[in-house]
């Protein structure tokens, strides 16, 4: 099927048709969902070659280009990011383009969360997947500010986030935090810094209950971690509801935008709390 393009230059029409075919086939999009050269938002300063709403409430935008990631697309990426728009943005290029391009351009696209598809009339290959632009603004983790044993997991978590699975990425950070907190609780119980400890099974009982109790009953005069004041424990307690709350079903694009915005904040916040908690308990060599 051939589409009508007003803005796309004729030599790229077949690439665009092939890319549309590829996305329809691989994402199960109906052909009537494809919008050609339409505005996706009045304040976004670019009309992608084509766009479509996906079943998971993302706006799929594809710019067909003869080069991998032209500089002109940066402004589009930044606008979507600033507005927290759940856009998955791909650049579709004719087969063979990749050979001519530098790794620098490919990295620029990857760092911006932009996907790359190489396509011709008969086939297409996804060079890299696109991240929802509502998530790409996530702050880079300064792994060097963490002890070496955490760095690999943190790097993986950030990569997971950027690769398009922020729920799992948040979960990875929560796991680190939860593990560290349980270790602290075991030590606090053993050293009697937590005298009124109810009959918890520290390794198994809900994390939230343990934090809640530590917030109230941790004896800061005997515990050699003065930063672990009730306010700090309350910060940790504040994120426990999200530990298992990240995979709720999304029912609209608006809900997705809200969720992504929250996930970004949660991820960044969890990283900060983890760093602070590590620093606060550093003396204990947990």
């Amino acid at each position, binding site marked *: 099927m051939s589409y009508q393009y*007003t*803005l796309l*230059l004729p030599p*790229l029409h077949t690439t665009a048709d092939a890319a549309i075919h590829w996305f329809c086939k691989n994402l199960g999009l109906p052909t009537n969902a494809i919008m050609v*050269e339409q*505005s996706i938002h009045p304040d976004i*300063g670019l*009309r992608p070659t084509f766009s479509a709403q996906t079943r998971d409430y993302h706006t799929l935008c594809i710019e067909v*280009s003869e080069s991998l990631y032209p500089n*002109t697309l940066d402004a589009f990426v930044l606008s979507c990011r600033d507005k927290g728009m759940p856009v998955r943005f791909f650049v579709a290029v004719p087969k063979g383009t990749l050979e001519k391009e530098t790794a620098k351009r490919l990295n620029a696209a990857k760092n911006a969360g932009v996907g790359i598809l190489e396509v011709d009339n008969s086939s297409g290959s996804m060079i890299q997947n696109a991240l929802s632009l509502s998530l790409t603004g996530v702050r880079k983790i300064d792994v060097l500010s963490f002890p070496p044993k955490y760095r690999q997991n943190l790097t993986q978590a950030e990569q997971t986030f950027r690769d398009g699975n922020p729920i799992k990425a948040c979960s990875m950070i929560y796991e680190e935090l939860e593990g560290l907190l349980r270790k602290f609780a075991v030590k606090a119980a053993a050293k009697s810094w937590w005298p009124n400890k109810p009959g918890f099974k520290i390794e198994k009982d809900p994390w939230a209950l343990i934090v809640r109790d530590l917030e109230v009953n941790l004896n800061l005069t005997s515990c050699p971690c003065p930063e672990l004041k009730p306010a700090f424990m309350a910060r940790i307690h504040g994120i426990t509801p999200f530990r298992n709350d990240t995979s709720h079903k999304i029912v609209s694009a608006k809900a997705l935008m809200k969720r992504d915005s929250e996930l970004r904040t949660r991820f960044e916040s969890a990283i900060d709390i983890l760093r602070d908690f590590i620093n606060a308990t550093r003396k204990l060599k947990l």
Partner: protein
Amino acid sequence: MTTDASTAKLEQVRTDLIDRNPENPRLVFRPGELENLLESIRVYGVQVPISVYKQGRRYLLIDGERRWRCSLKLNRSTIPALVQPKPDALENLLLMFNIHSLREQWDLLTIALKLPRVITLLAQKLEKEPTEREISEQTGLNLSNIRRCKLLMELPQEYKDQILDELNKPKAQQKITEDLFIEMERALKTVERAMPDVIPNKDTVRRVLLKKYKKGVIDNRVHFRDMAKIARAKNVGYDLEAAEKELRRLFTDNDYSIEQAFLNSVGEAYRERDVGSRVSTILNLLEEMDPDELDDDLKAKLLKLFERLKEILQGEL
């Protein structure tokens, strides 16, 4: 022309109400050029208004298709535009020709594709076939370009398509260019006039020559001028049958270059004619000179020439 800019009104026109003008001869917009303009408009906006005319509730472009395309791509809702009165069909075309011939050069083929329509409309207006000079006056194109366009107009469609494909590529990557066809067609016309029997089928000859060009057997389009010189063998007193034989070989042998054909036939004769003509000029100049006023450098050169002449004409002296 009844339409002029003094009657136009400057307005902010909605980009989605503008349509490209089907009569716009410009067919080729290269990506690199558009990207630069896109970035400029993104940063500075459209600094020079486009020109449109109203057609019903919408607007048709007269000038500024690239600015309009970029504005639309940048999702700008409006663009500054001079809204002109609706021109008639001929005015519409001539406006675009004149705007562009004064400002930037379109690709010649795109002009060539529209020129027949201009000629038809002009013929209706003038009630006679327009001369090249009249076409030039109306379109702003110079006579040389009109003639070059005519050569392209006469090409079979498949070659026009080939050129159009090439034009869509960045300039540096274009190989099968308008200039190549213009040189080739000019030379073929000369051959047809001088030695009509040598070209039984012009299209077959074109194919052979293009194949050679793509293979690098012909490595410079200017060599087609030498092909025309072979056909004009009579001018240098070269044997016409031998020249025809060379051209026939040139049009059939896929590995035989124009350079070889030229050297194997009329090359020497043209060189001699060239030398003869230069010698005549030098003799005329020398006759006007006073031998006492010759400087040492010129004297040294003349002596060198004299020595060489003695060598060449030894048998004759």
